[in-house]
């Protein structure tokens, strides 16, 4: 409790003394105002859920279904970055001095996880790419030392932040290549518009130490890979609109492209099954299972919401399970007795109707998997503030958890499995 708080409390008690009786043994003791909760050590079943409309990320306990806290993110800052050590996370933010006008300031805000409070910020060039991608706008080097922020003005570049020294190091121009993914302690990957990858190497001070381009390994016109790549150990998996998986091994000095394989069998393709969603891929590292959000749709449906999650074994490259997704919001039926009773018209009357008639599934836009030994699969719909929680191994629906938000976007479960998620 800060001294100022203490002072005010003292003042309060002093002045209130007149109207407060001398405490007797049975009385509740006076409590100290000014306290804020500090979180325990992060748990693998904690998850950040982003809300782009309310400009916040809510932290949920998926086991107890409770709301642990939130961070205000500012305009379109969908994804935080998490130090593998776990004690901190980082939010690239864009602010204007007068709300929607004035001077633009971009910062990387450094949060201490257990306080959910900013402890420092590093100002970066006001060029941050402003979009809604759940991954690819920033990345942390595998040793937690450097943070790279993708810029688009529309000229593309990377801003390098030294997280140890809490300072901006350098902007690296990356014409023709976009987004950023971590690949080792001193290497970041980018995707180039010609279908190739670019390696950006840093030296020990975080300055550019070399840039190499690979051959192009996909056709950005005919079957582009989505930006929502997933990392499996030292391997990155890029998945295309048509469901082709392009593995890229990053352990060696040079990148190695593995044999592409397909998530969609000819039969499934005949039924027009497609990958898609806002955040449509996740991997459980320990079991090597890939979770893919699937829907039936036509061309250009690569961002349509999913109706099922298909689970693949990354060794055998076989689909081992299909989960038909439940509605993420009906959990509130448990609150219908009170629900909306106190609302002003017209909302009072709508909820009962919604319960009776609105059975169709909204479609799930986002998916995430926790990294512990009892992993949870979580799905969220862009419209509404609730997520559905499944046993990631059996596919059993466990519960639904309210986010307190209006929209559900990026899902992040960085704790557990020994390291933060890419």
């Amino acid at each position, binding site marked *: 409790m800060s001294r*100022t708080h203490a002072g005010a409390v003292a003042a309060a008690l002093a002045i209130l003394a007149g*109207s407060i009786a001398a405490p007797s043994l049975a009385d509740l003791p006076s409590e100290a105002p000014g306290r804020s909760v500090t979180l325990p050590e992060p748990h693998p079943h904690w998850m950040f859920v982003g809300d782009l409309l309310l400009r916040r990320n809510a932290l949920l306990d998926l086991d107890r279904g409770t709301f642990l806290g939130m961070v205000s993110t500012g305009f379109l800052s969908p994804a935080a970055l998490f130090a593998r050590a776990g004690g901190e996370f980082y939010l690239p933010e864009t602010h204007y001095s007068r709300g929607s006008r004035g001077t633009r300031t971009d910062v990387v805000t450094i949060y201490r996880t257990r*306080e959910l409070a900013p402890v420092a910020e590093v100002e970066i060039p006001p060029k941050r790419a402003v979009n809604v991608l759940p991954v690819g706008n920033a990345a942390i080097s595998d040793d937690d030392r450097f943070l790279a922020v993708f810029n688009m003005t529309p000229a593309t570049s990377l801003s390098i932040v030294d997280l140890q020294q809490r300072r901006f190091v350098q902007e690296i121009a990356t014409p023709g290549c976009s987004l950023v993914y971590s690949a080792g302690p001193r290497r970041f990957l980018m995707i180039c518009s010609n279908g190739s990858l670019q390696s950006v190497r840093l030296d020990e001070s975080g300055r550019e130490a070399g840039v190499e381009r690979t051959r192009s390994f996909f056709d950005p016109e005919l079957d582009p890979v989505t930006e929502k790549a997933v990392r499996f150990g030292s391997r990155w998996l890029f998945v295309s609109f048509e469901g082709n998986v392009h593995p890229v091994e990053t352990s060696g000095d040079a990148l190695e492209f593995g044999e592409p394989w397909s998530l969609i069998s000819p039969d499934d393709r005949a039924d027009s099954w497609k990958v898609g969603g806002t955040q449509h891929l996740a991997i459980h590292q320990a079991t090597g299972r890939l979770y893919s959000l699937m829907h039936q749709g036509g061309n250009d449906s690569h961002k349509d919401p999913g109706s099922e999650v298909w689970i693949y074994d990354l060794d055998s490259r076989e689909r081992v399970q299909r989960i038909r997704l439940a509605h993420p919001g009906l959990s509130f039926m448990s609150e219908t007795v009170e629900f909306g009773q106190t609302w002003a018209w017209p909302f009072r009357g709508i909820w009962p109707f919604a319960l009776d008639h609105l059975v169709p599934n909204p479609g799930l836009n986002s998916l995430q998997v926790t990294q512990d030994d009892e992993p949870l699969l979580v799905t969220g719909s862009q419209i509404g503030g609730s997520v559905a929680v499944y046993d990631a191994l059996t596919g059993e629906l466990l519960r639904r958890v309210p986010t307190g938000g209006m929209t559900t976007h990026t899902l992040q479960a960085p704790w557990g499995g020994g390291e933060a998620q890419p």
Partner: protein
Amino acid sequence: MWRDDQNAVDRWVARAARDLARRTSRRSFLTRLGVLLVGGATLPLLPVARAEPRAQAAGEPDPNTPLGDPKDCEYWRYCAIDGFLSSCCGGTHNACPPGTEMSMTTWIGTCRNPTDGKDYVISYNDCCGKDLCGRCTCMRHEGDRPVYYATRSNDINWCMGKVGVIYNSTVAVVIGVASDT
């Protein structure tokens, strides 16, 4: 600026202390926005406060093991609250959610603890510095007065001064036993 605030806080507490009133609510405008956010705006996929009267929640003989549900709007301490319950937002009934700061300008009410039958002076402090929590809207307001009668007005956002004006949620802190005199 800070000295000014400190003086303001003292003046404030003095005025509030001279004006203890029962079951008076505050900031219903924020609550209404809250209802919009939590109920209307995101309907029907969002949770909403249990605002209907319930069986009287118990108090706590031992503050460390509270009886009754501090996430329930009917919890005894909330007799004059109006806002989002900190205990639903990552905090507790008397501590703010992580990363928010508790305001020192407050409305003060008097609530009866059903366990010991005593009236306690309750300070309703706002948790500030993060945007609306949006969970567990709790409106129990009577005796609201206009803004010029500040200690009784629920149109005022009590996030003020050092903690900033951005409102997140509200706690209910026991300040002492109300005397009968």
